[in-house]
């Protein structure tokens, strides 16, 4: 066995390992792709506490599913809800009803607050305590006393004669419009009455199994509800619904793009070689590429994102370039007495250069901070390398001289090259150049920019509509915009929350926001608790305070005053966050309290009733406060997308110089001819995007990066075969370009705007490079340094 066959066998054993590993992944059912869209978002590396805060908000929402069942009539709504829930009841292990709070007796969780009621005041009551005189308070107490309906009464009259604690409870109740009603949770919008059905998902929201089980089940329950009450409205929202929609879409795209490009390539090769053998060979290199990418990617990341597979499906188009190039050369070398190993040796420098430039293009994608993108880049680069190695190790063994026959397409292709225009310094060329510059300038001037998070996901409109409706009805706090408050200890955090809330109160008055939720709403800082107790003692409990005056009016004796005073003071002990967190009442705010974190304590102040116009006000409100940070995850992602659009733009530009540097040692003064078609194609692509009204986004720029890798291959192939009478390059480039078009062209059918932009750019760019490349080939004397013999 000689060295070459040994290499082929070594590679065969590597391929066996890949097959074994993939089979293991497949049969062990580990191969469930990830559909979490957040996995595509950048990790907040600079600030772990901020990352933790966001994760806290996300975790609070992720495993939750909320369904509203509404009708104009409450009885109808609750009847439909009964039926809806009955359908789900059989699947308790999947979806668990989460509305015990509707059945919980309020007294249970009021008890804690009653013990600390002295410090629990609304901002309005606190202001009144500072500004109003004794008669004001006595009037309030007497009115409450004599009215049969003294307003809200959380206990005996003498425990809260001035209604301060009742006010506080009422204000807390207004933090949500949801109310218990007949054992259900209820919310109404004046037109319809809705039963609120909260569920907890028992399987991870991003597991395929959960999605495949939950979505049909909800539909079944929806249909059952419609059947019994035809006018019922069912609104559902939950992370799992988005994940399921994204997953189904990605699956469809993987199969369409993968199968479509595969089929296209088979047809192409058949037309070119009129033989099955090349098809099998190309499939072999692509197959090993895909297996290798999957296997190594899994070892590196321990998971595969669905979008990686979508993107990776387009790999099929790229990975066959090397095989095609080899086969085309084999075909044309059949006139010469070269054996396949000698041929490979001759092709190796060009093949290697082509691989390196393409892989570099992919790896530039890995420079972005988006983990999903990084995975896609690594997956693609690995696929290229494995396909390339398969060509290098196996093809010379498998394809001997004379194996291939040329078909009519190859001959037609050769004929077409001779008629293809070539670049020459003449007057008409100046006109073409001038026209091109005018076209480019005009196109570029029309090019806007767009850096929107929605590029990454495009959920069905119905889901978005239901989500918006549900958030509006429930007046739910914004999950991606909030204030992060930090301090050395919990007391400092609470004090800082209180300072922030003073800035937010005017925004509520001006209806810029609906309200806020914060730990300090429930547990004031100790400083505030002390101040409020002092205020109450001074206004009510002094010898000539309002309580004594009230006693005189209702004929109560000193003993009554003493006893009442004692009971009040007993309710003035300190309330700490931990006391509150232990009770079931804290459940709705628990996710806001991050507690001990790196370097201190932290909490979240969440906001209700936001819209895009409120964001600048909020950002300003948080400014200049110690330890308070405004977090706008949506805005942040958009700004990251924008930043990386610019950053990658520069990377693309610099890469041209880098690639030129790599090409120069081999092609010297002709190196620019390798690069120019791609550069011009990129300029033309951007101009066309501008003309067609597209807005420039990160993913266009990333595609230009990849186009550089692919396009330079074509330039290299042509520069290796500069003669107009030598159709090898033209044939290889034609086949490569067509298959790239098939794969990336199909990617432009993707419903994910980012992938679509990527596909479209590749589509236009590849066509342009394909048609431009022969114009730049130069067939006078050989201008590059001959590779090693």
């Amino acid at each position, binding site marked *: 066995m000689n060295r070459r066959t040994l290499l082929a066998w070594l590679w065969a054993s590597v391929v066996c390992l890949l097959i074994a590993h993939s089979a293991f992944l497949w049969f062990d059912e580990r191969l469930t792709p990830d559909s979490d869209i957040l996995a595509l978002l950048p990790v907040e590396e600079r600030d772990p506490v901020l990352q933790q805060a966001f994760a806290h908000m996300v975790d*609070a929402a992720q495993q*939750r599913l909320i369904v509203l069942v509404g009708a104009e009539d*409450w009885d109808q709504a609750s009847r439909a809800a009964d039926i809806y829930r009955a359908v789900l009841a059989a699947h308790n292990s999947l979806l668990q009803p*989460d509305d015990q*709070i509707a059945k*919980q*007796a*309020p*007294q249970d969780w*009021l008890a804690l607050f009653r013990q600390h009621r002295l410090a629990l005041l609304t901002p309005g009551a606190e202001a009144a305590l500072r500004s109003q005189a004794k008669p004001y308070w006595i*009037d309030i107490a*007497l*009115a409450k*006393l*004599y*009215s*049969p*309906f003294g*307003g*809200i*009464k*959380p*206990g*005996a*009259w*003498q425990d809260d004669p001035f209604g301060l604690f*009742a006010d506080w*409870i*009422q204000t*807390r*109740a207004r*933090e*949500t*419009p*949801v*109310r*218990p*009603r007949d054992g259900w*949770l*209820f919310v*109404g*919008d*004046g037109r319809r009455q809705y039963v609120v059905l*909260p569920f907890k998902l028992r399987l991870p929201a991003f597991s395929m199994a959960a999605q495949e089980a939950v979505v049909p089940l909800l539909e079944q329950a929806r249909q059952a509800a419609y059947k019994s009450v035809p006018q019922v409205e069912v609104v559902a929202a939950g992370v799992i619904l988005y994940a399921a929609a994204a997953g189904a879409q990605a699956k469809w795209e993987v199969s369409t793009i993968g199968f479509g490009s595969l089929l296209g390539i088979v047809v192409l090769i058949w037309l070119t070689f009129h033989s099955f053998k090349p098809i099998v060979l190309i499939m072999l290199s692509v197959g090993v590429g895909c297996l290798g990418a999957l296997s190594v990617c899994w070892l590196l990341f321990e998971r595969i994102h669905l979008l990686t597979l979508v993107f990776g499906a387009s790999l099929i188009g790229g990975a066959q370039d090397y095989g095609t190039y080899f086969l085309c050369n084999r075909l044309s070398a059949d006139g010469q007495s070269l054996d396949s190993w000698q041929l490979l040796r001759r092709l190796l420098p060009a093949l290697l250069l082509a691989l390196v430039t393409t892989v570099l293009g992919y790896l530039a994608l890995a420079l972005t901070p988006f983990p999903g993108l990084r995975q896609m880049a690594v997956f693609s680069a690995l696929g290229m390398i494995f396909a390339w190695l398969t060509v290098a190790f196996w093809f010379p063994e498998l394809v001997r001289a004379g194996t291939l026959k040329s078909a009519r397409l190859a001959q037609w292709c050769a004929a077409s090259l001779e008629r293809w225009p070539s670049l020459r310094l003449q007057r008409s060329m100046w006109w073409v150049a001038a026209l091109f510059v005018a076209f480019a300038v005009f196109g570029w001037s029309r090019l806007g920019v767009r850096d929107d998070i929605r590029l990454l996901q495009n959920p069905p409109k119905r889901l978005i509509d239901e989500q918006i409706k549900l958030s509006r009805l*429930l007046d*739910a*706090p914004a999950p991606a915009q909030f204030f992060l408050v930090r301090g050395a200890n919990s007391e400092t955090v609470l004090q800082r929350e209180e300072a922030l809330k003073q800035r937010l109160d005017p925004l509520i008055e001006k209806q810029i926001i609906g309200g806020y939720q914060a730990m300090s709403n429930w547990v004031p800082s100790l400083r505030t608790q002390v101040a409020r107790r002092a205020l109450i003692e001074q206004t009510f409990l002094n010898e000539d305070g309002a309580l004594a005056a009230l006693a005189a009016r*209702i*004929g*109560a*004796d000193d*003993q*009554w005053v003493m*006893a*009442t005073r004692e009971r009040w003071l007993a309710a003035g002990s300190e309330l700490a966050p931990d006391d509150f967190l232990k009770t079931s009442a804290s*459940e*709705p*705010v*628990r*996710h806001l309290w991050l507690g001990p974190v790196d370097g201190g304590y932290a909490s979240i102040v969440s906001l209700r009733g936001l819209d895009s116009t409120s964001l600048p006000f909020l950002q300003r409100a948080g400014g200049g406060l110690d330890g308070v940070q405004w977090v706008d995850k949506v805005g942040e992602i958009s700004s990251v997308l924008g930043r990386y659009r610019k950053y990658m733009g520069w990377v693309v530009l610099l890469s041209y110089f880098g690639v030129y540097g790599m090409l120069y040692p081999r092609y010297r003064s002709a190196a620019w001819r390798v690069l120019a078609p791609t550069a011009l194609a990129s300029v033309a692509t951007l101009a066309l995007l501008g003309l067609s009204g597209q807005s420039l986004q990160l993913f266009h720029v990333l595609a230009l990066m990849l186009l550089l890798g692919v396009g330079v291959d074509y330039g290299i192939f042509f520069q290796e075969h500069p003669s107009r009478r030598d159709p090898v390059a033209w044939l290889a480039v034609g086949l490569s370009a067509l298959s790239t078009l098939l794969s990336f062209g199909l990617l432009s059918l993707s419903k994910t705007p980012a992938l679509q932009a990527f596909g479209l750019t590749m589509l236009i760019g590849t066509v342009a490079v394909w048609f431009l490349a022969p114009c730049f080939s130069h067939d006078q004397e050989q201008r590059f340094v001959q590779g090693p013999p």
Partner: protein
Amino acid sequence: MKQLRACSFMLASLALLGAAPVAKKIQTMLAKPKVLCGRFDQSKQLVGLKKPLSSNGRFCVVADKGVLWRTLQPFPNSLKLTRDEIIQLRGEQVALRLDAKQEPTVRMINSVLFALLAGDLEQLEKLFDIDGTAQDNDWSVTLKARDPGLAKAIGSIALDGGVYVKNIVISEASGDRTQIVFSVIQTGDGAMTADEAALF
């Protein structure tokens, strides 16, 4: 459920101001006028106070519309309960307004109060266990809320009367006791005064 919070406990506790049983029999004894107005005298005995606190005023119950409760002595104070809202006026000022669209307990409170003043025991039976006696033209009942949380918040309610409800006694869990006596009952179109009609 994080975003959702159940908070109408205090409203629920208001609803629990009254009660009565032996419903069917009593139901036949009661007159059910479209409009019913009269005078009330309320006496509240608070724990730790020797003297009860007295107040009086006028009330109106209008079928299909709601209840108007006007305290005249010692402080003017009006309460209007309709199907869709509760409004409390302290003097001329609106001291409290609760909307049934947001607070479903408003409807419950209103139906209970209406039923109490009209003696509609069938309605009350939905929420209360009713226990009592009815003889000749007199009846008396005690009401206890079926929901334990509610029972704890309201305590018990005793009602007695004949053709109309005459007395209501509310005994709260805290030990406070409120007695309301109705008198000078008028029915029909002329029962409501002009300013009362204006408030509706």
